[in-house]
């Protein structure tokens, strides 16, 4: 990796701290999406919304080198995408997604 100046490293550290501080907000967003999904039998828009949110979390966590959250979000995102493609029944899809989703929530709620 290219060497960054001390100032940039401080900025990055600060940004990472801010990012970690935003985890509760991300958990809220995820839970809101999940509730909407649970209340419907078949919800393409809700799956898309959740996939977009997971995609963003995966991308930003990866960029901050928080690998476990990156992987958990990416794996949940993949399940959403598979569901979109395969037209998987909601009940089955939710079972598949649930463990990935819960793992991600657990990681986001873990003390930094």
């Amino acid at each position, binding site marked *: *990796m*290219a*060497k*960054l*100046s001390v100032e*940039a490293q401080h*900025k*990055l550290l600060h*940004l990472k701290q*801010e*990012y970690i501080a*935003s985890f509760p907000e991300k958990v809220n967003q995820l839970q809101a999406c999940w509730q909407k999904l649970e209340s419907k039998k078949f919800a393409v828009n809700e799956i898309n919304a959740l996939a*977009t949110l997971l*995609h*963003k979390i*995966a*991308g*930003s966590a*990866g*960029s*901050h*080198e928080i690998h476990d959250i*990156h992987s958990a979000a*990416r794996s949940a995102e*993949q*399940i959403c995408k*598979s569901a979109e*493609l*395969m037209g998987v029944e909601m009940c089955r899809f939710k079972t*598949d997604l649930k463990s990935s989703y819960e793992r991600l929530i657990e990681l986001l709620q873990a003390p930094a």
Partner: protein
Amino acid sequence: MSEHIEKIAENLYALTARKMKPLIVAVDDENNFVSHYGELGDYKLPQFDKGQSCVEELPFLVGLEDEAYVTLPIVNFNDDNVSSVNIIKINSNRYVILLEAVDEYQREQQLTQSSNETKLLYQKLQQLTQQLEIANQTKSRFISGMSHEFRTPISSILGYSNLLACNDSLDANVIQHARAIERNAQYLLSLIDNVLEHAQLEAEKLIINIAPFLLHDLIVNIGLMFGSDEKNAGLTFNLETSESLPEVIYSDQIRLQQILINVIGNAFKYTEKGSVTVSFDWHDEELVVKVTDSGPGIPIEHQKNIFQAYSRYNSGSKKGAGLGLSISAQLAEKLQGKLELKSQLGKGSVFTLMLKAKVGSADSIIKEIDISNNQAKRVLVVEDDEDLIELLKIYLHEYGYSTIFATNGNSALQQCENEAIDLVLLDMQLPKLSGIEVVKSLRSSKFKAPIIGMTASSNIDDKVKALEAGCDEFLSKPIQPTSLLTAINNILSHHG
């Protein structure tokens, strides 16, 4: 002596005269016959009376300019006479010298005919080349399209079989079946990747990115990938490095790694017992990597075709499309190198990769990237994720670039129209107007600045689509600062 020469000259003259049938017709200033020398009948000319007009029989006399000497190389006159005509003017008379030129005329006719035929053949060849190019493009598009179509459901099968295989609550048999599905889906996916890569190489769409990198990193990666005893099923894996290896070389690390993974992977695939040894050495500005296995070896008659596409030497029941080695050899060529094979039946095989490469210093990885002139460069970052926007801002400012931001495609289009922008860094997965649509729209509006696409997708098709739409480069997320800076610098240096 001179007697003989004169004799020979006489004979030669007679021979030439017989062949060329010289005829001289003298006419006055009004083209009326004066006298002649030679046979008029040779040119189907009548016996002229003195003072008789010769214009009808010798029509080329009409309209001649008043010059001392006129030459007409080939003239067709008076009932298909073909001759060369020379006219000499002396005082008021003109002397028309006719020499038969049938042979020359025929030669000229033949030349014209062959020239016309060549033109026709050339036109046909051009048409065929165009048709072949179109057919080849159609084939590449078809392969690319089909690969994508296959890839998507296979990814799904992979994902679900993996979920099943990881589910401890299921019966052991079901898990075993799920693993078999997963293994085969993985195999299908790698086949499709190879077909797609081959199509890209054929269409010359593959991008090679030469940059300095630490050889040590590459060797460690290879060690990690193939060093696991569990994966190697009893085979010994040896990794040897020479002390003469430079620390840093200039090449495309990803492609180099791809070649080695392919060749080493094959060595493991076809070797049932013994060892696979990979040695890294440096000779005469060349990186030399040897992959030696104790496998069954390859018969000599199969060795010459081994690097050709779809060519397979099946020494058992091993599967494959026969593309891996062809892709590796083509990639080696693209990296200014070559891949060679030495093998003896029953005694294993040695694949040798030789790669010309410039040596760099450890510092060069950072120093090579000159950031002193970056301040004048303005980068538009199109990204909808606020977390990433902040991160990119820090990286780009750190490298001296000035930045502006857009969080969606429409706003990016507007900024490109109204602002002076040197480079666009574009997230390909934007909401509403997608990255591909933004690129297409910019390129159709003659937007010239380079565009770097960014995506979390590992799908090679997405990269091809982005490049086809008009992106100049592609970066995978998560974005690494070095690759970001290298990509921007490389592109801006090419765009002046």
